[in-house]
């Protein structure tokens, strides 16, 4: 074999080495000089200089959850407007330190970016907002995969991340972070709320078949529903993972048709849910009898935006939601009215959670009297508040940064029951906070330090 590699000149190597050595000697005179006062050596973008403070909003503008993302951004813009000028739940939130004139005397501005519902893109967007745009806090997202990625980055860089829509247990369980907070409920709470209702309506000896979006939320959701329904006496025939963003579910639906299961649980969200529900109906799942009983569909996590996409296919299908615009309480009304005034249609649950999160963060800064993150975090931990859109008070648990509040059992309305094109979900019951509250040691996890750590 002629594999002659002539000795790459030794002198050449030496020259290269010299250049490298020279480079090493370059003094590092731009190690960040933002030495902050207080307990932490360096800390995100604190202190805030100038008359303005910047918030960052990373939301999915493309991909399976793009609708959610668009609605989140609307709500975030509205929240900034209300923080700067008053209005919305600033009129109902109790306790409240915000005055409607910005935060700590500074006007709030914002930057936004597309997280593509992709953890890698999320980190890229967040880093850009933190390092270049100097945001003091960021918020948004419509996926637990991105939420977990964003929280980790928040902890590394010392910038608080207020989660948007994220429903997996991991976000405030295994992957909880000191710099991350979640207002949204989780799959465990969905299971607690949904299990009894499913047993009551469909019986206690059903056999379930799960199709599950293949990422942390899907598995979390499927696990919680399995636990909850098996607790009621159901059996679980199979749990099949489907790729996130899959468009054709025929092979999985065929597997369901061929199984002994008589309930199809679709652990999908966003476009995935619209596609899987629509195709399940096209496959005749809802016209079908198995084991001598009507086959039922369950969509554990509902949103109005999805319901819009799925149309009549979700009539009568049970699920849960974190919040719905049809709620009748002062906080919900204040938010829905100002949102509808501005955009012409009511907000989704994704919009609600982002809106509340941004305002809760701003309020915590005001209460802490500083943007210094450890103090702001302490102001949020164990904070009990009301008037954020629920009928009763909510609590930010200090130990895992999960907010506890009422959650809602809903069912898809039929065409004749709808009062408007947005009136798609009927609230079957309000599940009180006490029912869905669970001990903090249900999930293991470490919040980490008040100072940024990787």
């Amino acid at each position, binding site marked *: 074999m002629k594999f002659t590699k002539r000795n790459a000149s030794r002198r050449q190597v030496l020259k290269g080495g010299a250049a490298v050595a020279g480079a090493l000697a370059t003094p590092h005179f*731009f190690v960040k000089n933002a030495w902050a006062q207080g307990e932490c050596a360096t800390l995100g973008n604190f202190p805030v200089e100038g008359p303005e403070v910047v918030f960052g909003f990373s939301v999915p503008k493309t991909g399976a959850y793009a609708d959610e993302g668009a609605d989140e951004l609307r709500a975030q813009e509205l929240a900034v407007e209300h923080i700067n000028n008053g209005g919305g739940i600033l009129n109902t939130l109790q306790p409240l330190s915000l005055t409607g004139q910005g935060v700590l005397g500074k006007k709030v501005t914002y930057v936004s970016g597309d997280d593509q519902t992709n953890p*890698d893109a999320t980190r890229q967007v967040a*880093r850009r907002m933190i390092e270049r745009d100097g945001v003091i806090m960021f918020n948004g997202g419509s996926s637990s*995969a991105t939420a977990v*990625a964003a929280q*980790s980055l928040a902890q590394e860089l010392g910038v608080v991340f207020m989660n948007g829509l994220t429903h997996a247990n991991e976000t405030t369980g295994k992957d909880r972070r000191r710099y991350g907070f979640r207002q949204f409920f989780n799959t465990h709470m969905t299971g607690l709320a949904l299990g009894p209702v499913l047993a009551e309506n469909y019986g206690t000896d059903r056999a379930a078949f799960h199709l599950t979006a293949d990422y942390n939320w899907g598995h979390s959701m499927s696990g919680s529903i399995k636990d909850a329904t098996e607790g009621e006496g159901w059996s679980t025939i199979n749990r099949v993972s489907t790729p996130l963003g899959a468009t054709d579910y025929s092979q999985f639906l065929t597997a369901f048709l061929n199984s002994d299961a008589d309930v199809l649980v679709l652990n999908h969200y966003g476009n995935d849910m619209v596609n899987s529900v629509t195709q399940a109906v096209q496959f005749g799942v809802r016209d079908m009898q198995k084991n001598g009983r009507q086959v039922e569909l369950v969509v554990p996590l509902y949103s109005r935006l999805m319901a819009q996409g799925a149309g009549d296919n979700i009539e009568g299908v049970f699920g849960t939601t974190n919040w719905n615009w049809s709620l009748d309480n002062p906080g919900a009304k204040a938010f829905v009215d100002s949102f509808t005034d501005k955009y012409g249609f009511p907000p989704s649950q994704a919009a609600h959670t982002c809106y509340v999160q941004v305002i809760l963060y701003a309020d915590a800064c005001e209460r802490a009297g500083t943007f210094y993150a450890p103090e702001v975090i302490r102001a949020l931990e164990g904070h009990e508040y009301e008037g954020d859109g629920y009928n009763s008070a909510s609590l930010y648990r200090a130990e895992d940064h999960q907010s506890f509040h009422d959650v809602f059992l809903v069912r898809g309305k039929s065409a004749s029951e709808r009062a408007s094109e947005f009136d798609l979900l009927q609230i079957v019951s309000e599940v009180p906070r006490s029912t869905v509250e669970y001990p903090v040691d249900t999930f293991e996890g470490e919040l980490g330090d008040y100072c940024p750590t990787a």
Partner: protein
Amino acid sequence: MSTETVSGPVRPAAATGTRSMGREALILLVFSAIVLSMPFWLPLLGGYEGLATKIMVWAIFAVGFDILLGFTGLLSFGHAAFFGGAAYVTGYVFRDHTSEIIVAFIASQLGVLVLAAAIGFLSLRRTGIYFSILTLAFAEMMFAAALAIFAPFTGGYDGLTMRTTPTLFGMPMQGLYVFYMGAIMLIFGFAVARMIKNSAFGLMLRSIKENPMRLQYTGVNVWAYKMAAFMISAHFAGVAGFLMVVYEPYVATKFLHWSTSGEVVIMSVIGGVGTLFGPIIGAGFLMYFENVVQAAIGEQWKLVLGLVFVLVVIFLPGGFVQLGAMIWRATGHKVRERRHNVPDMEPDTQRERNLG
């Protein structure tokens, strides 16, 4: 073997190795100065610290890719496998074993070695288009496997998150330290690539690009040379993947996705394949475009990027480097003639025949 067997287009001067050492040193020096001072000048253009580090990561990737595409004429659509593979190995080491980057570096390179040997062995059985599609298929298989059967190890779609800060001999590596580490790796990688370019080995690679048939007939083991080039470029990709995880303690499954391979193809072509400088410029351009220009263009930035890419392929096969040369010439300077840099194998099917 001697240089006489190669005739025609390859400039003998490039291969003799007698080229002035001073010139090489000067090139390296200027290059080092530009790279190392990046944190000073990049912010003036609207960049930021993290962007500089990312440019280092991708520039290393692109330099290695140029050894394969530019020197040897093999278009791999599967280099994400090495980038992502190394990133995962690095991630495990950081998560489960030690935060020491030396250990992670060695482990990740061993991983790439095995992976590149396997994929290279299977893909290099074929040439041309087959090679591109095979590499694409293998990388996509790894991506799918990372999402499915290996999900317990890779974290599936969620990726792998570490809670450690990487350390070098106990010293935490963060922020600018990572940048400098990347910069040194890039300069070193660039020097190695220049050396390969000016060596007999590099000459062989370019001869393979020009006419593999003729070399085969003269008894050269073309396959071994291709394999060597493939392995070297895979290691560059591996170093980039490793550095990516040192920079951000997170491994995304997207690192294995074909779009990662696509990105390095785009930056190489836009910059100017075969020139080493070109792909580095391309890497800088693409990162800058993705992160800074994007904000100015808005949602359509990818469309603009796609158009730029298409226009470059059609009208500027030598990329930005060719554009630079054209401008240089237009302003009355003399430019050495350079054959255009895209792989020069003619699309003549007869040629590739019997090579399988």
